């Protein structure tokens, strides 16, 4: 819609400059806080700003075409020339199929056939080098919009310009946001420049900034509210877990705000995607507020067609059937969306339960609302009573959504129930505090509802300049706070918290889960030894991860845990499992070979040759060399270094035997000592410890021990009995029950290893080997644990070595085997080997020198 009176050139220039300045400030926020950097948003910001600067001055009839070309150009820039060109070509082909001069149903059949072919590629039934890069983005652009497009095409009455059709699919922000609001084709057309240009741009800027604030809030929730599984043990932590599950939706809401805001800068004046969803007063109300575009899509494609077809058999019946269809459709379409973005089609019991409960409640709610007498609604209750009812409903819906969302986020309904049950043993004090907080929330909610009913909380309507001042000012304040926080984070706790939001990092929960993974306690579950050892490896797809995934902390599907990769076999003692012997395979995209003794090492004879100094390295996945090729783990490099420098000098041959096995904790190292370690006649046993996080690894193994009825040494058996461990417990319950006994268990392990060594004249050495990124660096508790564990080792009789600071001055990201995997890569291993060599060289008696 062309505006009637165009502002004068100076006015337009002034507004243009104001928009550009705000974009600059918003870009600085994105850059400083690394907003969705892993998805490529920070790289897209200059493209958006540059594109806007040209687009805003183009004649109206050229703007849509420019937007399409800008998206195509950005695709080439972000995905690379080949992948970008393939994306554009595949998209054009899909749109072309919709317009072939054949009957409509034949066109639909052709589109379905093309989609089936693409799905086969996405599922990796057919393999191409580009499918994992192009298909997630292509899927994100076409998976829902093509459905809407075909629906509207069938009923189209007015001709739609070609570039409008293309722009509907090739939306610039889609290149970095795979989760995208399902924009309606008609809405897309009708809202295009339907207001004053600069009013639309200003709204877009406000939404981008608001979206970024949502994303920062999400980061705060992620870092500080989500508890680690092993800490969910009472009412407080259960409430924290349940609430944080729902609050995480702010990330989706944030991304959608940014997306729609960016589109606003190109004239698409789309409505809000989410509207104060935490304040919904019923589940039906929630459906109206949260992800509004999804509601509109499902109404258009599912609800109204079904309702209109069935209504002759009764409106109520039609409404119920259509509502059920919408929610079943939503469930399946969420899995369908997951498939295009991640390549898997999950059908899980928690999904079924989540959508089932929502469906039942919304159907009931709809029936009540449909039968409500409008006259009754018009009768005004007492304002205070109405405000109280509103607050109670809002809190009730929020609580229900928290519960449902936590169910949706859990591994299984059983896991969810077990987690909630952790609250049952809480003290009356905790229940009392929780009740007081609820009462306080009710009171605050009532007052807020009362104020809202009197129009006190209504946001003011802003003109262009006041809006620009607010948005620009807020962006500048965010940048200033961020910069100031970086300089003061050591001195002021508040600055420390703000600085911690400035870059994405793992929270305690994921660090704990990842740590389990690093040690191949294995994200796939500690059932690895129980259920997966001795099984053939899972199929590994030799694919490169798409850029969005490669940059993120999410591991790609072929990044398997050691158990899933078929590296382990069960053993009947409390080692639980060990590496398979004489294996030659690829693990985490690196060559992985074990010798005939089951060590990730070259072959060594059982008996030590003459003039040889042997070091037996006991450890877990970092020692085994998880994610690095044969010879690139620090054990191999240390051996090489010892022989190169000291071998000739001392007339000795050094052999470092790698007994590191992914997932092993201290008790398994003891079991290894008892099994066969000393048959290899080591001179030194070098025990590698990593951090206090070993706690989860070493403790969760007891679940498998209990399940398989493996005999333990008496002392350990007593601890397990005292902790009440039994076969049916969940892994987090096992860890939770054993945490108080961690010191006992570790001290037992250290003492036994030292005893075994001394009995054979072997020198026991304990070495702390840091991992490249210390996810828990801000946790004081962690430092205490680390110091304490070193003290336990010393008290047990180990000679201790610390490699603290081994990575000083090096970016941790350059030392990890992958952004999502914190094991040291070849570079990190080299630093460890060099430092360990120097530490050993300082202690000649450990390496066959004087004093031995």
């Amino acid at each position, binding site marked *: 819609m062309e505006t009637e009176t165009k502002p004068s050139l100076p006015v337009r220039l002034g507004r243009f400059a104001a928009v550009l300045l705000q974009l600059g400030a918003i870009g600085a926020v994105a850059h400083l806080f690394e907003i969705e950097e892993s998805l490529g948003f920070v790289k897209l910001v200059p493209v958006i700003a540059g594109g806007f600067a040209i687009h805003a001055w183009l004649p109206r009839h050229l703007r849509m075409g420019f937007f399409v070309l800008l998206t195509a150009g950005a695709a080439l820039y972000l995905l690379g020339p080949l992948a970008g060109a393939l994306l554009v070509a595949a998209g054009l082909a899909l749109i072309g199929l919709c317009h072939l001069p054949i009957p409509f149903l034949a066109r639909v059949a052709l589109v379905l056939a093309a989609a089936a072919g693409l799905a086969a590629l996405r599922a990796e039934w057919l393999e191409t080098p580009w499918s994992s890069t192009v298909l997630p983005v292509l899927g994100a652009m076409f998976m829902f919009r093509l459905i809407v497009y075909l*629906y509207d095409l*069938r*009923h189209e009455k007015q001709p739609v310009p070609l570039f409008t059709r293309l722009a509907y699919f090739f939306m610039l922000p889609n290149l970095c946001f795979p989760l995208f609001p399902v924009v*309606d084709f*008609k*809405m897309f057309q*009708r*809202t295009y420049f339907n207001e004053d240009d600069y009013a639309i741009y200003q709204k877009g800027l406000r939404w981008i900034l608001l979206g970024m604030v949502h994303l920062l809030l999400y980061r705060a929730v992620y870092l500080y509210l989500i508890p680690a599984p092993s800490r969910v043990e009472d009412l407080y932590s259960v409430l924290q877990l349940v609430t944080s599950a729902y609050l995480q939706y702010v990330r989706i809401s944030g991304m959608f705000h940014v997306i729609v805001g960016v589109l606003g800068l190109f004239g698409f004046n789309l*409505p*809000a995607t989410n*509207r104060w969803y935490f304040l919904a007063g019923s589940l*039906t109300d929630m*459906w*109206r507020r949260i992800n*509004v575009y999804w*509601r*509109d899509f499902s*109404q*258009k494609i599912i*609800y*109204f*067609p079904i*309702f*209109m*077809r069935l209504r002759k058999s009764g*409106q109520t019946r039609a*409404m119920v059937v*259509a509502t059920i269809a919408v929610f079943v459709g939503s469930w399946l379409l969420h899995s369908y969306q997951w498939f295009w973005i991640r390549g898997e089609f999950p059908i899980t019991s928690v999904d079924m339960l989540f959508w089932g409960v929502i469906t039942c409640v919304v159907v009931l709610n*709809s029936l009540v*609302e*449909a039968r409500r007498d*409008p006259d009754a*609604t*018009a009768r*005004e209750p007492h304002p205070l009573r109405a405000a109280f009812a509103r607050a109670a409903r809002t809190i009730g819906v929020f609580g229900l959504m928290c519960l449902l969302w936590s169910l949706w986020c859990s591994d299984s309904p059983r896991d969810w129930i077990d987690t909630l049950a952790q609250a049952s043993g809480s003290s009356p004090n905790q229940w009392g505090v929780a009740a007081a907080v609820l009462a306080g929330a009710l009171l605050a909610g009532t007052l807020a509802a009362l104020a809202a009913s009197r129009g006190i909380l209504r946001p003011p309507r802003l003109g262009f300049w006041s809006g620009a001042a607010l948005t620009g000012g807020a962006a500048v304040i965010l940048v200033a706070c961020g910069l100031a926080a970086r300089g003061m984070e050591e001195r002021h706790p508040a600055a420390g918290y703000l600085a911690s939001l400035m870059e994405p990092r793992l929270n305690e929960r994921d660090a704990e889960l990842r740590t389990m993974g690093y040690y191949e306690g294995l994200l796939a579950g500690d059932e690895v030894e129980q259920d997966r050892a001795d099984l053939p490896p899972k199929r590994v797809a030799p694919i490169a991860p798409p850029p969005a995934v490669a940059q993120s902390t999410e591991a790609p599907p072929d990044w398997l845990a050691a158990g899933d990769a078929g590296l382990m076999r069960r053993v009947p003692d409390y080692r639980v499992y060990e590496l398979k012997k004489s294996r030659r395979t690829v693990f985490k995209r690196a060559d992985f070979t074990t010798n005939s003794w089951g060590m990730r090492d070259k072959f060594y004879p059982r008996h030590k040759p003459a003039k040889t100094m042997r070091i037996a390295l006991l450890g877990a996945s970092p020692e085994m060399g998880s994610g690095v090729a044969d010879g690139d783990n620090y054990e191999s490099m240390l051996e090489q270094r010892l022989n190169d420098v000291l071998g000739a000098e001392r007339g000795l041959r050094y052999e470092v035997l790698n007994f590191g096995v992914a997932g092993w904790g201290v008790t398994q190292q003891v079991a290894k000592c008892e099994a066969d370690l000393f048959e290899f006649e080591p001179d030194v046993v070098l025990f590698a410890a990593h951090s206090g996080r070993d706690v989860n690894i070493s403790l969760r193994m007891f679940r498998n021990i209990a399940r398989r009825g493996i005999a333990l040494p008496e002392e350990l058996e007593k601890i397990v009995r005292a902790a009440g461990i039994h076969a049916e417990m969940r892994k987090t319950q096992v860890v939770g029950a054993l945490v108080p006994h961690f010191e006992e268990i570790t001290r037992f392990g250290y003492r036994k290893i030292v005893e075994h060594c001394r009995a054979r004249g072997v020198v026991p050495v304990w070495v702390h080997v840091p991992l490249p990124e210390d996810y828990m660096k801000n946790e004081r508790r962690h430092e205490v644990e680390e110091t304490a564990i070193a003290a336990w080792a010393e008290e047990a009789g180990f000679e201790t070595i610390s490699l603290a600071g081994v990575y000083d001055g090096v970016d941790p990201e350059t030392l990890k085997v992958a952004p999502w995997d914190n094991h040291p890569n070849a570079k990190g291993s080299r630093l460890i080997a060099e430092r360990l060599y120097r530490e050993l060289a300082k202690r000649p008696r450990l390496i066959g020198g004087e004093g031995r």
Partner: protein
Amino acid sequence: MTTDIEVIKDAVRRHLAERLVPGDDPSTLADARPLISGGLMDSITTVALITFLEERFGVTFEAHEIGIDYLDSVELIAGTVAAKLEGK
């Protein structure tokens, strides 16, 4: 069969005001106020509106007509109904 567009608008405004802004004067619903894209109407109120229009004016709606092209404002709704009446 024709009906004055203002009569249709008035009827639509009264019907919607009862459901969307109960207690308010129907005239607060401006002709151009976005009903669907503005988040005022949902599936239940839309179904009720369709039923009302079909019963009051004797017209019928198809599923694809339930959307912003036809029902996003009092003005559009009245135009849609008037067009249907003229086509009868």
